[in-house]
């Protein structure tokens, strides 16, 4: 294996790293050049996507450290696209004083995503997890003028590093049992049959780190503060890219690495293994996320709790297992990520124009900006799972896969719970839409603290600044994507299915 060959296979990652450095340099040169940063980043990301497309269809380096397969390539592209749509959000955000640095960190986070997605070996996965984590901690705390941002960063960091420690601990247990860190080899070494206590500890510890990443209850406590306090693009990236990659890796770890220790989450035949663990996480997330979201008055917190619930739904596919279940999970998490970036983009525009992101700031949005209101309703209704949007098909795919799995519809309890959860969720999504479409905006509802700045900015509400133009274009594209994937789910679902062995 020559270095040249390695570089060829790792070209996408290398390109993104080089782009990150380039953006950093451009950002440092002069104040005027700062405007170029997003453009450089966008070009670099686009080139990296091209490089992913040029990769061979199969390759395996260093016992799974860098694996190239159709699935990994597809999700590298999806992660890059998610980073790409986050860039315009970052360029619209005025509170980020050093856009060059911010975007460079974002790109490094994207490299972390690609490493996560592209490896099937525990050490490399852990490195990817840490690279991603560190970037995200910095991104969450980036807005130095806002104490909430610091809080978000600190909380995310403290919870995240603890969770990473657990995962590393768990990995070491698994390594001790199997004598290898490659997932495929672990899957072969672990004996089928009842799960030994030591392995059980290892599995549970390993899963904790991922439960943290996907914000599954009870490891979700960081999410509301991070979603609410972090700068909008950071929150969007945490909610989208980080989640997608985590689900891809989580699926690979449990379905390939821990395949023999599956256990059973069927209600009539519970068996120790990872699937009951995930089932409990899923059930808790669905219940807690949906019920707590009911009480939120801040749209970003609401999205955070709904993200907890959605993490729970998405786990259903992994618990169901098999090609069907995993592809349903991958489909759902992808469309969820697209939807959430869009929702955050809308929140970002509203925040800049009305000075906050509480429910009352959305009052009368339909009258002020019908276009943003329509996009937001597309995103929220897709999250609620209403047709003809992507979330509707996603839920059908996911729940039918879960229903099919197990003997005698053993996962029926989870499917019923998830349906109940999505019934509850419609209420809070509708409350947001009610505020947008039905309520009238009155200046007295604004908080005293923000009224001055808010009123000054709202006076020229309809004059969209050139900065917001990028955000608006992104919102349009994402809303169109959500609608398109709802009408033509085949385009993505068939690709995911085809890429799974």
């Amino acid at each position, binding site marked *: 294996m020559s270095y040249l060959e390695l570089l060829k296979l790792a070209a996408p990652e290398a390109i993104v790293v080089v782009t990150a450095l380039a953006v950093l340099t451009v950002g440092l040169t002069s104040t005027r050049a700062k405007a170029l940063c997003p453009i450089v980043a966008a070009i670099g990301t686009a080139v990296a996507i091209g490089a992913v497309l040029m990769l061979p269809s199969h390759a395996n380096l260093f016992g799974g450290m860098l694996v190239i397969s159709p699935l990994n390539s597809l999700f590298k592209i999806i992660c890059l696209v998610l980073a790409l749509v986050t860039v315009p959000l970052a360029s619209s955000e005025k509170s980020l004083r050093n856009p060059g640095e911010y975007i460079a960190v974002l790109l490094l986070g994207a490299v972390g995503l690609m490493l996560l997605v592209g490896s099937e070996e525990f050490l490399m996965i852990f490195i990817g997890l840490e690279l991603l984590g560190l970037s995200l901690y910095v991104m969450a705390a980036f807005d130095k003028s806002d104490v909430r941002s610091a809080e978000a960063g600190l909380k995310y960091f403290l919870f995240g590093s603890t969770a990473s420690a657990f995962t590393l601990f768990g990995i070491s247990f698994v390594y001790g049992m199997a004598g290898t860190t490659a997932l495929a080899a672990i899957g072969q070494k672990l004996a089928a049959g009842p799960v030994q206590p030591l392995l059980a500890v290892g599995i549970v510890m390993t899963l904790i780190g991922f439960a943290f990443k996907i914000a599954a209850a009870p490891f979700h406590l960081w999410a509301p503060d991070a979603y609410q306090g972090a700068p909008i693009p950071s929150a969007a990236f945490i909610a989208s890219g980080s989640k997608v990659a985590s689900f891809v890796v989580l699926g690979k770890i449990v379905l390939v690495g821990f395949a023999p220790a599956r256990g059973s989450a069927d209600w009539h035949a519970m068996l120790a293994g990872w699937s009951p663990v995930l089932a409990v996480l899923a059930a808790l997330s669905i219940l807690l996320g949906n019920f707590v979201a009911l009480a939120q008055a801040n749209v970003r917190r609401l999205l955070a709790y709904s993200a907890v619930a959605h993490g729970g739904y998405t786990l259903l596919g992994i618990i169901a297992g098999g090609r069907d279940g995993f592809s349903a999970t991958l489909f759902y998490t992808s469309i969820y990520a697209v939807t959430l970036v869009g929702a955050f983009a809308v929140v970002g525009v509203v925040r800049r124009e009305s000075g906050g992101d509480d429910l009352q700031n959305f009052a009368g949005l339909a009258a002020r900006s019908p276009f943003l209101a329509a996009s937001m309703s597309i995103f929220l209704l897709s999250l609620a799972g*209403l*047709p*003809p949007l992507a979330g509707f098909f996603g839920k059908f795919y996911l729940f039918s896969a879960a229903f099919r799995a197990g003997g005698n519809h053993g996962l029926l309890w989870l499917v019923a719970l998830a349906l*109940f959860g999505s019934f509850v969720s419609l209420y809070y999504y509708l409350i947001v839409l009610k505020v947008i479409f039905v309520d009238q905006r009155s200046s007295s509802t604004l908080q005293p603290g923000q009224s001055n700045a808010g009123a000054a900015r709202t006076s020229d509400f309809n004059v969209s600044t050139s900065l917001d133009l990028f955000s608006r274009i992104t919102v349009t594209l994402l809303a169109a994507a959500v609608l398109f994937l709802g009408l033509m789910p085949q385009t993505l679902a068939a690709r995911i299915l085809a890429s799974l062995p």
Partner: protein
Amino acid sequence: MIAWTIYVTFAGAIVLLVLPRVFARWLALVTAIAGFAIGVATFCQHDVDLAHFRTVVRVPWVPALGMNYHLALDGISLTLVLVTGIAAISAVLFSWDVTDRANEFFFWLLLVVGGSYGVFLSADLFLLFLFYELVIVPKYFLIAIFGSTNKEYGAMKLTLYSFFGGALVFLGIIAIYVTGGSLDLNQLAQFQFTPQLQSWAFPILFLGFAVLAGIWPLHTWAPTGHVAAPTAGSMLLAGIVMKLGAYGALRVAMNLFPQGFQMWRTTIAVLAVVGIVYAAAVALRQRDLKFVIGYSSVSHMGFVLLGFATANVFGVSGAVLQMFSHGVIGALLFAVAGRMIYRRTRTRELDALSGMNLSRALPFAAFTFVVASAASMGIPGFSGFAAEITILIGAWKSYPLAVWITGAGMVLVAAFTLRALKRSFFDVDLANTAAAPPEMEPITIPEKLGAGLLMFATLAVGLYPKLLLDRIQPAVEAMRFLK
């Protein structure tokens, strides 16, 4: 050709969003008329086989999961497409005065109509469910933005009930899809589901659909929703949306799970009879005219469920005819209460109306309300009579006791209808007869046209029910649960 009802309606809805406001109502009217005209044209064709659920369009949609864009038509679907068209036209005519956010109003309205066409014509279970859920959100906005009395509460309640029913249906459909291995309704109708599955999946699916049909005790969304909705909204709710639930219960739950249906049909009959009598009794005590009509809707939909429960050709055909009939009569009653009266008097309180001498102030409204009430009470000559008598004949074969109880219920229906009629229009204050009737804006031409269309429909079907029954009955006979 019938598939164009869906396309035309959705296309109209989308064009509405970009067109200036002045054209909104005209475009909505043209769209609604086009949809109805396509339905009528199909109705007049004699070479269409209405006895079987014949495929009209079938295009692969998501081949990986076996989903097709698959539309089909039989007599039951066609009947409901027709009532959808009638209700849509009259709903547009009765919202001729909507000027505030008119584009949005007619957009939501047409989405409800288009989604309903879609449900009635879908032959793919996923597609049917897609259209079914598509209708939920437009209803919410129609009521929450444009409604009256307690509109946000009513809208939310209605939406959550619908979505709750939707979640049950979702579960049932997944069960069908996974065990039956297909989503094609015609293929599934040949599939033998295990009795164990049918015993639990049928009640879930049926109840899920029946929530929208106003089954007792999950009917409470209907009166509050109807009252909160704008006139066109109530007309669509009563005229179409409640039929979606009943149609789904018939086409999906009963047709695919015949054994489950046999196990549960007595329960359904009991719930239906309780619903008929209970809702009629409650209607008797209401002060708000729209609440009276809202409960009467629940009562009338109880007849549909009773017809289903009979499990014979008479009962089920009668139920389908009742869906048509109530769609027309319910829309007419709401049109009078919501538009003709409320718009002019600003009140729907029966006590307040009784002093207004409305029969002299609004003679056309009085005439329309008399016709609608007569039809609602089941006076021979109107569609309500034809439908209910057919259902009761069917019920006599299966549940004679139910017929006796329902007969008592019909007396209550007559009682509350007459009470509402008298209090609202004919409570003439004897001491005050000489006084001139209060000045009111005369009934407008769109209102007359809309009311005329609805009255014509109920009268035509009432006088010659064979017109529809001849098309409904063969389609019902082809259903599996009758064999």
